């Protein structure tokens, strides 16, 4: 009765959680529907084979990692069996008329399934602690939510563990034995009961507090223990529901070990305590299902149900965030292991380069808006590093259309007012960019900043390039004779005549004036196609294109600075 009431409460909470999860997804969805048609196309192109194969057989996970597939399969099949035959036995026993929890094959299968789930979860835990390609120390710094991923696994382990302990204590409990005798037999006293006790002590691992040496009959005479009679009594009263527990290959050995201990604590009924713990863990798992990692059980089928967008269609879906995909991520990290721009992460130490970090940030961003300008800017930068090679989506065991998410992420950040460095650089006025009043003042004020003397503060934007960078060495550009050959060869100057600002030779001249900062904001620098024509034609062998690229590197830092100021201004 208590369990039923609690179950109903927990189910209601779980359902409410699910409704909340889905309604918040739907709410988010509304924000991003750029147009209904695109969304409709995105939602209704279903992939039936994908649903079947990826949900039940986890083919994608199999392709990505055989070992993890095995671990996952252990947990999945074991859990499904336990849920159907063990937890919901009141309903499912209608399908097997002979069902009793204490007989074969159910006792063995229950142990097997429990062991499978336990083993799988242990593998998960071990794997979470040791990762192959991704450096653990780096990740520890970057990822606080790692812990959250293990909570569900730990709760499942507790569930399985308490179940096994409850079973072994149940097997060994004398009190339980007495209860059963009272309920299901008309044995009330010796000597028959003693024979049965002795038989159960030997074959069923019940731990009795008093040693069973002899039975006293009604007349006060002692007779030796008759196990044969015990066996007959067992057949008469017990065997229908209780076969020998030795096939319970986890619980039975445990019962032998823990039996004497349990017997000593007998009055406290440890078997009941662990039974209630077991039920409690099950309820906790169920209650937090919509908010824990377990939600992927629902989200992955939803995510795999959609066909992946082909490259030529992806731009049409810019504004549509695939919300089922966002929730389906289990942070397995396969994507980050194959990520093409992993080296960018190694150099920049920005975890937001890695797909499995990006997706978590994106989820928060979609829900909360720009809650932390620093994090969102790192996401913008990391997403900007992404080359859209699609390797992450190819390997994703959840079948999430990741490339589409990355494209949508850019659109989302544009909407929320966190532009990329390119946009900031193009939108910033000359005054904002240089931090000076007007062009004349800059040249006047900065005349002491001769090339080669550019100080560390200014060079800070180009820290990765260091002072050996071309823009910091006067001899790299001071020989420019302003012949304009570079500008004449430049396709940007040719095709973008009305919109471009400086030609490459003018950028070189800015450098000679000590105005690297000003140059780093010029359109020429940001639009350079890197065709190297300028560099190849330069009669003075100046590395014009390499210098333009270095200036852009420096400009990235300035642009990020401006965006940060902008975002701070917005929030303050």
């Amino acid at each position: 009765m208590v369990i039923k009431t609690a179950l109903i409460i927990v189910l209601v909470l779980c359902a409410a959680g699910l409704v909340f999860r889905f309604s918040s997804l739907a709410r988010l969805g509304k924000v991003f529907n750029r147009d209904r048609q695109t969304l409709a196309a995105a939602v209704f192109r279903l992939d039936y084979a994908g649903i079947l194969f990826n949900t039940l057989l986890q083919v994608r996970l199999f392709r990505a990692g055989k070992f993890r597939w095995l671990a996952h399969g252990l947990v999945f099949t074991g859990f499904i069996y336990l849920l159907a035959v063990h937890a919901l036995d009141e309903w499912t026993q209608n399908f097997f008329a002979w069902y009793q929890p204490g007989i074969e094959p159910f006792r063995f299968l229950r142990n097997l399934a429990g062991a499978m789930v336990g083993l799988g979860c242990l593998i998960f835990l071990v794997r979470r602690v040791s990762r192959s390609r991704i450096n653990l120390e780096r990740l520890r710094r970057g990822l606080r939510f790692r812990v959250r991923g293990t909570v569900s696994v730990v709760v499942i382990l507790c569930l399985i563990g308490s179940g096994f302990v409850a079973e072994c204590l149940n097997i060994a409990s004398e009190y339980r034995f007495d209860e059963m005798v009272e309920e299901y037999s008309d044995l009330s006293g010796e000597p028959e009961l003693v024979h049965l006790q002795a038989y159960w002590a030997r074959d069923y691992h019940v731990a009795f507090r008093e040693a069973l040496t002899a039975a006293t009959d009604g007349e006060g005479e002692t007779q030796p223990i008759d196990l044969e009679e015990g066996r007959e009594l067992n057949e008469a009263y017990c065997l229908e529901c209780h076969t020998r527990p030795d096939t319970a290959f986890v619980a039975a050995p445990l019962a032998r070990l823990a039996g004497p201990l349990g017997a000593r604590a007998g009055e406290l009924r440890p078997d009941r305590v662990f039974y209630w713990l077991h039920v409690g863990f099950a309820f906790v798992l169920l209650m937090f299902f919509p908010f824990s990692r377990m939600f992927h059980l629902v989200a992955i089928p939803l995510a795999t149900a959609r066909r992946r967008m082909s490259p030529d269609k992806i731009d049409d879906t810019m504004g549509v965030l695939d919300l089922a995909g966002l929730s389906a991520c289990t942070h397995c990290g396969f994507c980050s292991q194959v990520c093409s721009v992993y080296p960018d992460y190694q150099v920049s130490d920005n975890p937001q380069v890695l797909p499995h970090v990006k997706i978590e940030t994106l989820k928060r961003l979609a829900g909360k808006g720009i809650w932390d300008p620093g994090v969102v800017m790192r996401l913008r930068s990391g997403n900007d590093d992404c080359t859209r090679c699609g390797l992450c989506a190819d390997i994703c065991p959840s079948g999430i259309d990741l490339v589409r998410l990355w494209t949508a992420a850019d659109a989302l950040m544009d909407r929320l007012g966190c532009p990329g460095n390119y946009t900031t650089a193009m939108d910033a006025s000359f005054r904002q960019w240089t931090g000076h009043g007007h062009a004349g003042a800059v040249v006047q004020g900065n005349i002491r900043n001769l090339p080669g003397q550019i100080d560390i503060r200014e060079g800070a934007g180009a820290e990765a390039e260091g002072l050996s960078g071309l823009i910091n060495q006067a001899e790299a550009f001071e020989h420019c004779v302003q012949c304009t050959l570079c500008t004449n060869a430049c396709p940007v100057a040719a095709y973008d005549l009305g919109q471009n600002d400086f030609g490459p030779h003018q950028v070189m001249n800015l450098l000679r004036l000590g105005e690297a900062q000003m140059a780093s904001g010029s359109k020429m620098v940001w639009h350079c196609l890197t065709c190297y024509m300028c560099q190849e034609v330069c009669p003075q062998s100046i590395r014009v294109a390499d210098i333009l690229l270095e200036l852009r590197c420096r400009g990235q830092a300035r642009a990020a600075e401006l965006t940060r100021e902008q975002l701070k201004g917005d929030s303050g």
Partner: protein
Amino acid sequence: MRLAYFPGCKITFGLASYGKAVEALMAGLGVSLVRLPFNCCGNPARGKKLAASVLAAMKNIALAQDKGLDILTPCQCCFGQLKHGRHWYETRREIREKVDLALAEDGLAFRETGLVHDAASGRLRERPVRVRHLLDFLYREITPQVLAGRMKMPLKRERVVLQQGCHALRPYSVTRFDNPFAPRIFRELALASGLDVLDWSKEIECCGDPAGDTHKDLAFRMRRDKLASAAAAGADYICTACTHCQIQYSRPVPGDAGHVRAIPFAVFLGSALGLGTGGVEAWKQDGV
């Protein structure tokens, strides 16, 4: 012949058909392509964090070195960047130190030379790993003469102009690919395949793809003008040898830009050799 195949990021997602054509061509020529867990070549990081772009390139090279294989890429941007990355690695001490540390993190190390499988002789030789572009490999290892002798289904003399592509040609001091102003590798290979190669004033000019994600308008104007001028030169096709050039010409253009389409050279050559590279006809219709 064995080489480590470096498709680059754009082939894996955006231009799979080009990748398939290259693989079929190489299989037909008896070259086995080995897939290694390469990352991005580093080209996109050039204008953001130079050290990251150098690390990306050097990691690929160190990986190929570990396996003792030269790198073959059908993308000129990847080719140029792998060369450039090594150039910066060798000339910038600060970057080199940073890169070495990061390589060590993955259990890799760059060595000047190592035992490398030599494509021509098939033997292991002590030398640096070489980065090869598809054209450079076809020209120097297979040679146009051999190719001309193997033509099975000679192409009808399609009138093409060549998009030479920038990053393999320039800067010559780094790439050492071909004459940067009067390239002839691509032309000789195209002639050997039976194509009617026309002169085109914009042959060595940039395709405009790098502006495709940011300054879309610039990329669009370059695409339109170049397609129109190729038509004016009398061409039916622009023949490309770089993933990015191919992508640039495959983007939408208005109708008045003419009838010219871009087709990768690997597709033309594969058809001429009678290999299953997708067929020129299919590319004529759908582009990508």
